[in-house]
């Protein structure tokens, strides 16, 4: 499993596709997390562990959403928390984590 993260529109998905042409890519995973945790009420850890078990070879790309002033709306805070919890699990299991800025990847794990 590999994880590519970065701020919005930093090219993490393109880089992931370039570097892993044959892999199954899960782009914009923060949106999948929003759906699973916020809309469907799944537990972040359970959701993450189940995903990793079902897709051990997955290449996941997602936005970093935790920087900035804590949002006023509870739902926005919950979203950041959920993305954090899930991506911590995925990053922990991934053999490779790459952070992308301006299209440039820096491998941090």
């Amino acid at each position, binding site marked *: 499993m590999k994880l590519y993260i970065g701020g919005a529109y930093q090219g993490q998905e393109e880089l992931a596709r370039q570097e892993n042409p044959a892999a199954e890519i899960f782009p914009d995973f923060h949106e999948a997390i929003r759906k699973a945790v916020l809309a469907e009420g799944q537990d972040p850890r359970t959701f993450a562990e189940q995903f990793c078990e079902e897709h051990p070879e997955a290449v996941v790309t997602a936005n970093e959403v*935790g920087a900035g*002033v804590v949002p006023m709306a509870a739902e926005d805070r919950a979203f950041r928390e959920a993305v954090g919890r899930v991506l911590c699990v995925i990053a922990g299991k991934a053999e490779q984590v790459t952070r992308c800025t301006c299209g440039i990847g820096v491998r941090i794990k």
Partner: protein
Amino acid sequence: MIVLVTGGSGCGKSTWAEKLMDSLQQDRRVYIATMQVYDEESRQRVKRHREQRADKHFRTIECEKDLDSAEIPEGSSVLLEDLVNLTANEMFDNGEVSRIVPALRRLASRCSHLVMVTNDLFSDGEEYSTSVQEYLRCLAEINRQAAEMADCVAEVVYSVPVALKGELPCV
């Protein structure tokens, strides 16, 4: 050793900081908790953090402001969580922001290890009210001073520590 841990919200800063504490010193571990508990969400956050460190033998000291008032035995290994709340409490709850950095220095000189947690609040590009902008400016200055004091500054990115200063300690 003095370490500053930064990163976004929910990125695993506390978890990494606690693991780091495990590797530094086995006895006289102190956790300085700074968050004001005022609603269910903050209660839940405290509960989660308490559960996380339940078996780690910390003595917890509540200190919402005036860090000098916390009685920390000499030679302690201290986890201070966090500068974001401490600064907000000093600023918005009748405290004194300017006493934070001197108190951090005194604390650092008393204890054998000091791990400070802070947060990256600065990159969302939003414009805030004057008081929030002033808060951000003060916190940024405190972060910079803390980073200067620190042997190691680590940014935790979704559980992965990245060294910004010094070498990452083995955790």
